[in-house]
């Protein structure tokens, strides 16, 4: 069957960012829902119960900071204050590390500004023994557990106390005791590994769950498909998290296929229940995290969660978003700031105040400063003690074979 004479000229669609430096910021296309509007399915509901969730947005906090709807959990002010503290501390940590990078104390840094609620609230849904397979933007998972900042900083500074022995790029932490898997520089690879880890836990009957993390840009990688498929087939205790912060370096989420369907929708094509959540709403993230973790723990199989958020900071310290984003891009973002929103909620329920907030902020900044001073005392990338060159040849294998010993000797060690 040939096309009719009137068939349109063939052409391709090239997805474009809604906004570029020459425009005003515009996120009016982001699909969202009013707070409290989206139902909470039974954890063992049929896939059909999730169909609409892929196109909507679970939100608990409304514009006035009130918790509402079926995803609002019984209030636990202390837990929420802990969450606020974790987010504030993460932000203070990021700010300090960027400064240290600018001072030339290390080569590189990556912030999670604006996305703090996701890692901080999700971590609260996890238990000792669970394992996160994070990306470079989930430092909040460590900070929410009060993992020693000095330890993190020493990794960033590649100094003598860097447990990674200066091998990894800054922010590529590893902390088995915190359920934090070693970060890979290769996007996506850890997503399917999390599925394998969860399979192993289930094979051995261990009551542990795995959590996979990926950016919306990296869902394009092959490992994302493999992870969804294997999770669908074997139904291991894994939660598959997608952090959609709208940007992958310079390319908008539309380039990752976000304009044709949501990232949550991907999972349903594999028969995996999925939810889409306001990632700047601490209460929503926590509620959905609890829900998905419980599903995994109760052998009900994998869940995919798309967290909708916004990357406030540059991609990394090597990046300059003024080259590709609208100048007022951030202010056009409709879902606000996670810290401001949780603060408003806590103040609204009478469990927080401006004064306590300012005091906490100051205390955390002091804590971060003190940690920074201590970390610096162990050296920095270009200055002071660091791992001996002899260590470069360790851990390639459990024991260095002759050729690595020879090479070490050739280097003079």
């Amino acid at each position: 069957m040939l096309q009719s004479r009137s068939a349109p000229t063939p052409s391709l669609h090239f997805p474009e960012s809604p906004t570029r430096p020459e425009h005003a910021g515009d996120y009016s296309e982001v699909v969202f829902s009013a707070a409290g509007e989206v139902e909470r399915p039974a954890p063992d509901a049929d896939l059909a119960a999730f169909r609409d969730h892929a196109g909507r947005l679970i939100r608990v906090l409304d514009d006035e900071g009130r918790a509402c709807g079926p995803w609002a959990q019984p209030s636990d002010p202390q837990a929420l204050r802990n969450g606020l503290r974790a987010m504030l501390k993460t932000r203070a940590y990021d700010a300090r590390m960027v400064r240290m990078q600018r001072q030339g104390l290390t080569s590189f840094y990556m912030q999670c500004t604006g996305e703090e609620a996701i890692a901080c609230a999700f971590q609260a849904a996890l238990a000792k023994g669970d394992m996160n397979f994070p990306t470079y933007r989930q430092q909040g998972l460590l900070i929410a557990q009060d993992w020693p900042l000095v330890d993190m900083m020493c990794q960033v500074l590649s100094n003598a106390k860097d447990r990674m022995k200066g091998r990894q790029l800054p922010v590529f932490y590893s902390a088995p005791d915190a359920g934090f898997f070693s970060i890979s520089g290769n996007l996506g690879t850890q997503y399917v590994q999390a599925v394998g880890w969860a399979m192993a836990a289930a094979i051995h009957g261990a009551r542990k769950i795995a959590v996979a993390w990926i950016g919306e840009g990296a869902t394009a990688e092959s490992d994302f498909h493999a992870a969804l498929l294997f999770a669908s087939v074997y139904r291991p205790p894994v939660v598959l998290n997608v952090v959609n912060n709208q940007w992958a370096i310079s390319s908008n989420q539309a380039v990752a296929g976000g304009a044709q369907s949501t990232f949550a929708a991907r999972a349903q094509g594999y028969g995996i229940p999925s939810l889409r959540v306001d990632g700047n709403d601490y209460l929503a993230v926590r509620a959905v995290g609890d829900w998905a973790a419980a599903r995994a723990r109760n052998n009900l199989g994998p869940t995919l969660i798309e967290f909708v958020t916004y990357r406030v900071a540059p991609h990394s310290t090597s990046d300059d978003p003024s080259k590709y984003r609208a100048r007022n891009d951030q202010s056009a973002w409709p879902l606000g700031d996670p810290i401001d929103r949780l603060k408003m909620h806590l103040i609204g329920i009478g469990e927080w105040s401006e004064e306590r907030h300012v005091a906490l902020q100051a205390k955390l900044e002091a804590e971060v400063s003190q940690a920074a001073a201590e970390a610096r005392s162990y050296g920095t990338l270009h200055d002071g003690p660091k791992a001996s060159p002899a260590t470069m040849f360790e851990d390639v294998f459990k024991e260095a074979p002759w050729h690595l010993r020879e090479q070490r000797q050739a280097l003079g060690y």
Partner: protein
Amino acid sequence: MPRGTMIEAIRDAVDVMIARDERVVTFGQDVGYFGGVFRCTEGLQKKHGPHRCFDTPISETGIVGIAVGMAAYGLRPVAEIQFADYMYPAYDQIVSEAARLRYRSAGDFTSPLVIRMPCGGGIYGAQTHSQSPEALFTHVCGLKTVIPSNPHDAKGLLIAAIEDDDPVIFLEPKRLYNGPFDGHHDRPIVPWSKSEHGELPEGYYTVPIGKASVQRAGADVTVLAYGTMVHVAEAAANETGVDAEIIDLRTLVPLDIETIVTSVSKTGRLVIVHEGTRTSGFGAELAAEVQERCFYHLEVPIQRVTGWDTPYPHALEWNYFPGPDRVGRALLKAMEA
């Protein structure tokens, strides 16, 4: 000593290890119910249950990806890639992840997995069922690469690989599965049960990774070979009458350099044989190392007899395969100078 095939050897090794060590699991395409297209895992699912031996989707990325996650958890996965020619979709997980996990995490996490894959030609498998990609593994630091040439070694090396704390690539020359093969494709097939190299001990034992074996002692020329080529080299030596010392490398990384240097220092002549393509093949590494270490002992140039730098063709398989004739000519040439 009982005899058995290489397939039985591999099956035995996995069977013994699943029974001995609750961390061992095996999986891959058609590996579970059916027991693999070469039947290397036949019966294991029935015996040990699907949680120890199971089928996977046709995704090499996924197979190795979950293996890395499982190994990081503490299991000892033995993953099968149906043909080495199909390992490429898994290459990222092998190179960027399995090989580097221990290093990048300074030992926080490790990746003690085994990836088995049939390799090599000789079965009219054409370009996508015949490849020998060992050099693509030997170049990657953090991987051990093993390739047996007989049932005894296959079983002992595979058990050692499963027990090894590092990731091991385990290449199985498929033309050797059912019998030794010396490259004379037009002669009757010899089964392992009729071969002196067909011994297959029962139960648990290991053959150490990193140790070569001298397949045939000799005084005049050293031959470095592995997999199918060990048998081809033997035929070539017998047929030319050259008193060749044939070393079966068994492990490519870490290499048994001592055995090699000792032999070449004695013979002063070296022929390297492999089936993989020539340029940047593993023979290049062997030649580079030996010329440096044995420079003043070498009497003639080191020769490489290898697969050509073309894809493995179907109809012209035996023009591609580096058979006893080509190896024999290299031996004679080494003796000429």
